[in-house]
């Protein structure tokens, strides 16, 4: 069983410390959503977990081994990252781009095998890219390119999947399908998923645990219902929110309230209370 662990993780860009002494563990089958305002350090944390950013102090352990002691390819066979965006300069076809996800398994020099092509087929179907497989990635929409990035990460057949803002640029249908896919990957295939999200409702719908970050520190971590509370959220985001149960699932449903409108409604209440 492969689990991912961060211990006393401190990360910095030059002199600017972005993550302070952070610890977390992700178990197989779990979906951990990283939440927090812009600049809270969510993407930095993902990069550190993905072995892209060397932490200033502390360690990231993949199945108990220091990730920086492992070879990059050995890490890529077990852990995949779908970045928020990437330079799409080369007009590869969707299929060719997704096939690159097989590189950690096949190596950089050997030709792909039938097993690789089977994995690619499966992923193209999972991400609904079969119809686009021969299109050039440079000609796709932003949302379609996001699905290609996800598909390439899935083609790595990882045990740990790191997703940076996977729902951004997707329409409602693909947002919903993506959240369902993430749940299926965790529950069915036992993948451990770490996902940064801006939409708190997406986190409430799919995460088994959420972590709330602000200014590079962990404010709260736990079950969505325990963390996604009006107090906690208004403290971190500085916005008033109302939390109600989801009409179908009963999970938290977060609705922001405008500061000015709240004032108005308070003022509107007063005269009716008066007489």
């Amino acid at each position: 069983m492969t689990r991912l662990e961060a211990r006393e993780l401190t990360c910095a860009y030059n002199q600017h410390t972005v993550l302070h002494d952070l610890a977390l563990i992700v178990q197989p089958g779990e979906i951990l959503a990283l939440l927090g305002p812009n600049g809270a350090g969510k993407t930095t944390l993902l990069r550190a977990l993905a072995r892209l950013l060397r932490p200033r102090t502390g360690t990231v352990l993949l199945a108990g081994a220091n990730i920086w002691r492992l070879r990059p390819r050995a890490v890529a066979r077990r852990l995949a990252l779908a970045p928020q965006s990437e330079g799409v300069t080369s007009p590869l076809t969707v299929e060719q781009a997704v096939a690159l996800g097989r590189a950690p398994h096949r190596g950089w020099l050997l030709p792909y095998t039938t097993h690789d092509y089977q994995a690619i087929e499966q992923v193209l179907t999972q991400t609904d890219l079969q119809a686009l497989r021969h299109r050039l990635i440079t000609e796709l929409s932003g949302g379609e390119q996001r699905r290609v990035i996800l598909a390439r990460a899935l083609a790595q057949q990882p045990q740990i999947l790191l997703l940076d803002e996977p729902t951004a640029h997707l329409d409602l249908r693909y947002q919903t399908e993506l959240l369902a896919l993430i749940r299926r990957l965790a529950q069915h295939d036992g993948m451990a998923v770490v996902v940064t999200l801006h939409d708190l409702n997406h986190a409430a719908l799919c995460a088994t645990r959420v972590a709330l970050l602000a200014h590079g520190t962990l404010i709260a971590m736990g079950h969505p219902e325990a963390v996604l509370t009006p107090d906690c959220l208004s403290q971190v985001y500085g916005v008033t929110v109302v939390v109600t149960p989801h009409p179908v699932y009963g999970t938290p449903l977060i609705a922001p309230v405008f500061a000015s409108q709240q004032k108005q409604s308070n003022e509107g209440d007063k005269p009716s209370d008066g007489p």
Partner: protein
Amino acid sequence: MTHQTPHSTIGRRRVALIPMLIVLLALVIIASVAVGAVMLPLSRVMRALLQPTTPGVEATDAVIVWEIRFGRVLLAALIGAGLAVSGAALQGLFRNPLADPFVIGASSGAALGATLAIVTGVGPVSLAAFAGSLLAVAAAYSIAEIGGVVPATALLLAGAALNTFLSAIVSLVMLFNEQSTYAVLNWLLGGLSGRSWPQLRTSVPYMGVGLGVLWVLARPLDALAFGDETAQSLGLPLGWARIAIVAATSLTTAAAVAAGGTIGFVGLIAPHAARLLVGANHTCLIPASALLGALLLLLADDVARTVLAPLELPAGVLTAALGGPFFLYLLKTHQRILGARR
């Protein structure tokens, strides 16, 4: 999930073009042997090529075909292929459609080496060009390196600055040595006049190694197109891949420049034309670039040898004169596929 030969599609749709290009190249090689100051009919070329010792073949045919033209034609094809593949690889490494084999200093280093050799009369010009080319790239690489990391943009900038600096020195040396100006200029323009088997023999090993390594690195080049972080997260040892690509391209380019001077434009446009034909997947792009680069330089050299025969034009002037308008046409009509527009 499809169970019927799922691998029939990846990168194979337009791979059939590659054998066609090989056949075309063979035909153009034979035709190139036929044209020149003395035009030979194809039947005599074929006879001289295939059965040079049979009594039916005229002795002059065999000399023209074997001793003068065939070596030069093969050298033109090899240089064209080398420049085109280096260009394709550097465009991939830098994710920049403007990159060519000379962006990281190879041409200006070679030019300075050759100029100094011509002016001082010390040592063979081609060896000086080869050494100058490799030294310039090594200098650009070590300037861009900080703490074991060589960012692609830093390397590109170092190369650009070094090119300007070394070209200025070449100009200065030319200004102070007027009597050598013509010889230097002639070398700088690039061409194959008087080159044949000896140059071919010396460049084959370097180019063979360089081209082979670059083809082997096709998949890392595909991954690098998505950016360094993505390539790294796919498990690519970034530093090694980058150093291998830079070393192989500079070896290939240095050998090409040593044999034919700084022939411009082939390394820029052949990869773009190849991308339009077979797509951006480097496993196909590299051989297709090689074939198109070979064709392009062969045709340019054919024109260079014939339009003013018995005078010869520098082939490097023709590649730019013919390649420039063609490239502008491609840019006008295929911006998106060239990667010039998102």
